[in-house]
Structures are given as structure tokens and as C-alpha cells.
């Protein structure tokens, strides 16, 4: 953190002075290209790093940006700068189309959708000759904005060179703007939403953060940046053709992000520098051999040290070291390396996937962190203090007195031939804790999933505050004031505790993404307010001290408490707790009991699924017992506990020995 600001200033100064220090047009153009690739990589990082999806379509989005500017110049004579907004908007629109096509798929399917999309775009650019001039490509001329040659001195240069330098500055400024935009978006509620849908789509939806909507948004932002970069690329190269935007380019972008390091600003820039420089490096076989030699030497030394220190991992360490040495030998045997550019790229991807999953920047960051933990932060530190009063903001439920808050009527849920729920009726009165128990497979979790919209019921209906909610999407039900926790904890693992809670507070923001990018007073205020509330909620469950820890590093018991805090951030009228005590130690359970009571004291109605009977019997006002998807008993805890049907369901049919 302390290093960040001076380094950033240094970087900006270096970027701006570069063309006057290294005056070779070749290198000025090279750095401009790095800036352009960095813009794509920063945008791709939003999709790849933050939402966790592999996109193989970014070369096409980049191409769409390039061709928008190219076609506008070629067909309508519109200049470079005026064409940039068009390039961004058109690419973003295509990004939206791509995201809509990929809405219901993830992982390999999404990768294939993006690949098919990219291939189609490339074919269209190639074939739509009337618009794009087809395989012949389009030539454009970078403009000169201001003739500074008469100033003399360092500004005395040829027209071509001035064109080159001025174009460089356009690219450099675009990169700086991109850095600001991306940094602000990923630090805002949008960035948290992107990470949330990666770590747990179901929990995102149940926190009112619609997975579909935010996935489309992530693609739109990412595509817009690719479009911007494409437009810059067209004028930097001054010539574009369809085969510039092939599948291999998408791989190059992905390599830049993974190699540099996901989820950072520095990483994609470092990665872009590597992928742009590398082909030039490969052209010089001697230099390439020397570099391979240096890498092999470093690997041998570092690996050697590690093997001595940690003998157990010897075999595992030996493999990458051997690979680096083999790579050096391979470099020595080759006469001409340029032809093997893609092999080198491929090998680098494999290496990164296996040995540098966090990229070069992530690796360095960890290295520094192991020596000076205070110097690096993976997350923004949020150190506001919470207070009890700020934690609660729920409005009282709108139900007539004596009417239930939640009413489940003749609920039927069928999976194939299996009736998981068979005509179940439940009425939950406001202000109560309603227990839901039953043996394994009795339909408790299914009930939970129907109530929160994860399943649409086969029959029957669910009324909340008197209006039907069955069949609504999870995010819509969450917005009405129904929050939940999960049996198998569903936290946003790579977000900090306070960020987890702030995902739950997504609904408290009104500002748009544009306001976030411009850092308007309202968006700053909203963020500050959300931080205080989140800190207060953490304080309520006793996790304030761990606010800036990643959720995945929490012990299990604390994870369950964090889920409760996150659910409370929704300001729920009804809170569904799905086995909150599972896996907790005895002291944890005592704490949990206290917290649940306090939540009730604040007027929140709860449904509690739990196997720890002491917890259920001690807390609940009413208990419903399910068995084989049917309600077999209902009443206060003592009644239910004594009910012979309940005892039989739990301890086994006709055997009276224990039941006595």
C-alpha cells in the first residue's frame, strides 16, 4: 500500500516522458501497442479475473472496435477521435449480445460460445466486403493534432515521427483513463457483484444481486474497453485486415492476463508488455537464448534453495526446474525461433496454469508479503467502525394482526416421479421463530429452495405479506425482504468479510455505474454509508476484528456467522436459517443462540432448519416436522418432542425400545 502511490506516479511520468527519452519510432510504437493490449487485458480481467469466465471472443470484440473506426473513416470519412465513442458503443453492444447468448452457461460452454462468436465475427468481417472491404483490409491515416515542429529543440522531428509520437500520447492517455475507470468499477459494488457471482452464483441471486444482469454488465464493460483498444489499434497500425483478429489473438490476451496476474491493474499491464515484446524478442535468437539461459539459471537456484529448505516437496519442485532447463536446451537447438512463437505462447500458458496461477504479479506480491506483510494488500482496507444502532434498517412487515407473514399452501414439488414435497401447508407468524425439522431427505432443504425461488414449485403457492412469491426469481424474492443462509456455506470466498456483507447491501445503492466512474458525491456517500452499516453488522455477529480477512480463511463456525451478517444486510423481514449450527463447536452454538435471539428482538421473523434439537427446542415458538415430503406434526417444541410419530420418524419405525 505504501509503495503503490510513488510507484504509480513514477509509472505515469515514465509513460509520458518515454518518447523523448527513447526516440526510436520503433520503440515508441511498441510501447503504444503495449498500452493498447493492456487496455484489452484490463477489460478482459473483469470477465476472466472477476467473474471467472474464460472468454475466447475478445479478439472479435477488439476487431469490432477496430473495424468501427476503420469503416467510419473508410465509408464516411469520420476521423479518429470522433470515431472512438462509436467504437466503444458498438463493441459494448456486441458484448451485450455475446453475454445474452452466454447467459445460461458457464465454464467450458461459455468458452465455446465466445469462441463461436469470435469465429462468426471474423467470418463476417471477411465476407461483408461492401462494408469492410473484405480480405483487402482498410488503411487509415493517424491524424496530426498540433504541429509542434516549429518550437525547435526536442520537438524538431519528421512529420511521420510526430504522427507516431502524438498517436502514442492518445494511446497513453487512453490507458490512464482505462486504469481509473477499471479501478473505480472493481472497487465499487459492481466489482463486488462480479466476484460474488463467480464465487457463488446462488448466494448472489439470494442476496438480490442478479447473476444474469451483472454477467451482462461485466461483458459490456469489458467489451467496451476492447472496442476502445481496437479503435486505437486501427490508427496505431494504420492498417487492419480480418486475419488480424483471429483466435490466436484471443489466446494472446488471455495469456497476458493470466501471465501478468488476475485481479490487479499491474498484472495485465505486465502481461501485455510480455506478449507484445516476446515476438520481438523471438526475432533475435541470441537474445532469446541468453534470456532462456537466465530463466533456467534463476529456476535452478530458486529451486535448489527450495529443495534444501523443504525436502518433502523435492519431486514437485524438480519438475518446473527441469522444464526451464529443457526450455534452455530447446532454445540452443533452434536456429529460427520466430516460427515457434505459438509453441512458446502455449508452453507459457501451461507453465502459468500449473506453476503461477496468480501470475507474475501475484507471485511477486506473495513474495513481498512473505517478507514484509504490511507492504502488500490484496484488498482495499476498510477500517470504519461500526455501531449497534447502524446495523438495523428493516421496515416492519405489512401484515394484518393475526395473519401469517409467510403462508405456504398445498405446496407440491416433484422431481421426475419423486414427490419431494407433498401438499405441505405452513404458516409463519410475524415475529416468531418457526422450526422446520425432519430426517434426512424429508424435504426441508427443498422447502427452503422453493421459498427463495431457486426451485419453482410444481403446485401450490407461497404468499409473503399476502402476495404470491412462488415462481419469482431469487433476486426478486430477496428484494421483497426474504434472506437466507445456506446449509453448505455459500460465502464469496475471495472477498473479505466486510465485502461479503456489502454484497448484501447492494440494494442500498442508487448510483449508476457512470456515477461510480466519475466518483460523484452521491456515489462516494453511498459507499461510505454502506461501509458503516457493513462494519456494524459484522460487529453484531462479533466479526468486526476480522473485517479485512478473506472469507475463505475463516474457521467454519465464523463462516456461518458471516452468512448471517450478510443475510441481515438485506434488511430482511423473514430470515431463513438452513442448519446454522451444523459443524459448530459447543461454544459456537451458545454464541449462535444469543445472536438468533437478538435478531428476533429486532423484529425479524425466522424459519430455522436445524438438526441440533437443543437449539430448535430452545429457540422455536412453533415447530413443523416433515417426513417423506409430508407434514407429520406441528406444534410447540414440547408437543412435537413427545409426538410418537416424530419419535418414530427419527428413531425408526416399529421398534419401541428407545421410543419408550
Amino acid at each position, binding site marked *: 500500500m505504501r509503495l503503490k502511490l510513488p510507484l504509480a506516479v513514477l509509472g505515469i511520468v515514465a509513460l509520458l516522458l518515454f518518447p523523448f527519452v527513447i526516440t526510436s519510432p520503433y520503440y515508441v510504437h511498441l510501447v503504444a501497442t503495449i498500452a493498447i493490449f493492456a487496455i484489452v487485458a484490463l477489460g478482459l480481467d473483469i470477465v476472466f479475473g472477476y467473474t471467472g469466465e474464460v472468454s475466447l471472443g475478445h479478439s472479435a470484440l477488439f476487431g469490432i472496435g477496430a473495424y468501427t473506426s476503420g469503416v467510419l473513416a473508410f465509408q464516411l470519412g469520420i476521423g479518429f477521435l470522433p470515431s472512438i465513442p462509436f467504437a466503444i458503443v458498438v463493441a459494448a453492444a456486441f458484448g451485450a449480445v455475446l453475454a445474452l447468448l452466454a447467459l445460461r452457461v458457464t465454464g467450458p460452454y461459455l468458452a465455446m460460445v465466445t469462441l463461436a462468436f469470435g469465429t462468426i465475427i471474423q467470418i463476417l468481417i471477411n465476407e461483408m466486403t461492401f462494408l469492410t472491404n473484405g480480405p483487402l483490409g482498410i488503411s487509415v491515416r493517424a491524424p496530426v493534432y498540433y504541429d509542434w515542429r516549429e518550437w525547435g529543440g526536442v520537438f524538431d522531428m519528421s512529420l511521420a515521427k510526430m504522427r507516431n509520437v502524438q498517436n502514442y500520447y492518445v494511446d497513453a492517455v487512453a490507458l490512464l483513463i482505462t486504469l481509473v475507470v477499471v479501478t473505480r468499477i472493481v472497487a465499487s459494488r459492481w466489482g463486488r457483484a462480479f466476484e460474488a457471482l463467480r464465487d457463488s452464483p446462488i448466494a448472489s441471486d439470494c442476496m438480490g444481486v442478479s447473476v444474469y444482469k451483472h454477467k451482462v454488465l461485466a461483458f459490456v464493460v469489458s467489451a467496451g474497453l476492447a472496442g476502445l483498444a481496437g479503435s486505437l489499434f486501427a490508427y496505431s497500425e494504420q492498417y487492419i485486415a480480418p486475419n488480424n483478429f483471429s483466435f490466436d489473438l484471443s489466446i494472446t490476451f488471455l495469456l497476458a492476463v493470466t501471465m501478468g496476474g488476475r485481479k490487479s491493474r499491474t498484472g495485465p499491464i505486465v502481461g501485455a508488455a510480455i506478449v507484445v515484446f516476446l515476438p520481438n524478442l523471438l526475432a533475435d535468437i541470441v537474445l532469446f537464448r541468453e534470456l532462456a539461459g537466465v530463466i533456467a539459471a534463476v529456476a535452478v537456484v530458486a529451486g535448489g534453495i527450495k529443495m534444501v529448505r523443504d525436502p518433502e516437496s523435492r519431486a514437485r519442485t524438480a519438475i518446473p526446474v527441469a522444464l526451464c532447463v529443457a526450455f534452455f536446451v530447446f532454445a540452443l537447438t533452434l536456429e529460427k525461433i520466430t516460427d515457434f512463437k505459438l509453441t512458446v505462447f502455449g508452453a507459457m500458458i501451461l507453465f502459468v496454469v500449473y506453476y503461477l496461477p496468480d501470475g507474475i504479479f501475484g507471485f511477486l506480491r506473495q513474495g513481498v508479503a512473505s517478507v514484509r506483510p504490511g507492504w502488500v494488500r490484496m484488498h482495499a482496507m476498510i477500517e470504519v467502525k461500526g455501531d449497534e444502532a447502524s446495523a438495523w434498517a428493516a421496515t416492519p412487515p405489512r401484515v394484518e394482526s393475526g395473519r401469517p407473514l409467510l403462508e405456504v399452501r398445498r405446496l407440491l414439488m416433484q422431481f421426475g416421479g419423486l414427490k419431494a414435497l407433498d401438499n405441505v401447508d405452513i404458516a409463519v407468524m410475524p415475529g416468531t421463530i418457526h422450526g422446520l425439522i425432519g*430426517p*434426512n*431427505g424429508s424435504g426441508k432443504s427443498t422447502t427452503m429452495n422453493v421459498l427463495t425461488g431457486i426451485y419453482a414449485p410444481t403446485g401450490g403457492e407461497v404468499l409473503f405479506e399476502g402476495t404470491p412469491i412462488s415462481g419469482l426469481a431469487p433476486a426478486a424474492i430477496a428484494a421483497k425482504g426474504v434472506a437466507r443462509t445456506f446449509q453448505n456455506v455459500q460465502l464469496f470466498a475471495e472477498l473479505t468479510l466486510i465485502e461479503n456483507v456489502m454484497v448484501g447491501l447492494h440494494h442500498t445503492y442508487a448510483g449508476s455505474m457512470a456515477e461510480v466512474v466519475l466518483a460523484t458525491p452521491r456515489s462516494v456517500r453511498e459507499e461510505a454509508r454502506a461501509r458503516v452499516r457493513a462494519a456494524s453488522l459484522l460487529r453484531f455477529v462479533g466479526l468486526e476484528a476480522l473485517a479485512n480477512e478473506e472469507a*475463505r480463511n*475463516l*474457521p*467454519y463456525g465464523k*463462516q456461518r456467522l458471516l452468512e448471517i451478517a450478510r443475510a441481515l444486510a438485506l434488511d430482511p423481514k423473514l430470515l431463513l436459517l438452513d*442448519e446454522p449450527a*451444523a*459443524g459448530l*463447536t*459447543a461454544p459456537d452454538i451458545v454464541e449462535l443462540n444469543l445472536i438468533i435471539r437478538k435478531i428476533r428482538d429486532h423484529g425479524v421473523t425466522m424459519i430455522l432448519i436445524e*438438526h*441440533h*434439537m*437443543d437449539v*430448535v*427446542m*430452545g429457540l422455536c415458538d412453533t415447530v413443523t416436522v416433515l417426513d*417423506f415430503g409430508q407434514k407429520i406434526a406441528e406444534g410447540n*417444541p*414440547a408437543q412435537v*418432542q413427545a409426538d410418537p410419530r*416424530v*419419535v418414530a420418524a*427419527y*428413531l*425408526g*419405525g*416399529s*421398534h*419401541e*425400545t*428407545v*421410543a419408550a
Partner: protein
Amino acid sequence: MLKIEKLVAGYGKVRVLQEVSITVPKGQLVTLIGSNGAGKTTTLRAISGMLKPESGTVMLAGADITGMPSHEIAKRGLAHSPEGRRVFSTLSVADNLELGAFTRAIGARPRGEIRQDRERMYEMFPRLAERRAQFAGTLSGGEQQMLAMARALMLNPEVLLLDEPSMGLAPLLVEEVFATIARLKERRVTMLLVEQFAAAALDVADYGYVLENGRVTVSGEAAKLRGDPAVRAAYLGAAH
């Protein structure tokens, strides 16, 4: 025959078992009971290699099998009929049974022997014989349970682990399952039975362990546990 000592296991950061020790003597039926989430299934998974234990030892017939992959453990004669039955739904009943004997089928043993074993299973579970050509996925829950048990027996196991054979079955079928277990016990099959239905399990078992929150809280002769109020409390909580 099977001896586990101070077994600690869990999923990721979640530690489910805290130093569980259980002994299953040769030819005996031992049952492990406890409420949902107590760690019964996790215990069996850690024994059969579906889950790598963090610490502790698992000994099968005197040999240390801790942390081996499940296919190695199966070769050493441990059969596990897992929770939820897990039959191979797109294979026929006969093929399911044949795969139960996979460790023997790839050795030098003649195939005839496996076929004979299969016929014995059909005698023991006549309903499976009727449905031998049917896909296992089309069987009813009770039939699938029979198949899962028969498939595990096809290994000719030294020890058989049964995980909640009664789960999700109607009461009549539950009785049938327990009758089958009783028959296996007569044949001196060494078994570790995990059950939620404590009463029924203790009726057939020789010895019982009660698991609560990943720890063995009570253990003893099955006959003694039957009347023990601590067992009831483990399920329904202490009376209020």
C-alpha cells in the same frame, strides 16, 4: 478386522471428525448411530478412501490402509455400500453386480466363479433376479438399496460398510433391509452399519457407537445401549 484410531477428517476447513476410534471385530456387526450431521457418513468415507483423513490410522486385517485411494482399498477387501445407494444407473442390474466383483474379474479367476456368486445374490435378493436385465436407474428405491448391498457383497469383502441402507425408504422396506442385514450377520459377514434409525440398528447389532458432533460420546454392547436415555437425547435433545 477393522480398526480405526483417532481418525480426524473433514472437508476443506471444516473438520467433521474429531479423533474417532472404532473397532469392528471379525464376524461381528457393529453399528454407528447418531443424528444427521454427526459425522457418520464422513467416518465411512474416510475409511474407504473416498476422503483422505487428516490424521489417525485405519487398519484393515492388520494392514495400514490410511489415505490409500479407494480402488486400492477395495482390492484389499473392503466393500462400501455408500449413502444414497449410488448404483450405476445406465448399466443393467447384472452389470452392476459384475462390477461389484471388478477386483476379482481382472485377475486370473475364472469368470464362472463370478457368475456363480451372482446367482447366489439372485437367490438372496429374488427381486434383483427378476430385474436382472433392467437398467439400475429404473429400479425403485428399495430395489436399488438391495442392489447396492448385493453389489458390495460381490467383492467377497473382508469388511462391509453399509451407509444408511434405510434412508428414504418406506417403513415396510426398512424392515426388509434390516431382515437382510440380520441374514448377513448369520453368515458371519463383518459389518459396520451406519444408521439414523437407532432402535432398529441396535436390535440387529452386536456393538454400538453413538456419534455426536464428530465425537464418539457413548459406546457399548448393543443390548445395553437400547435402553440408554443418552441415545435418545443424541437425537431429540434432552427433554425440556
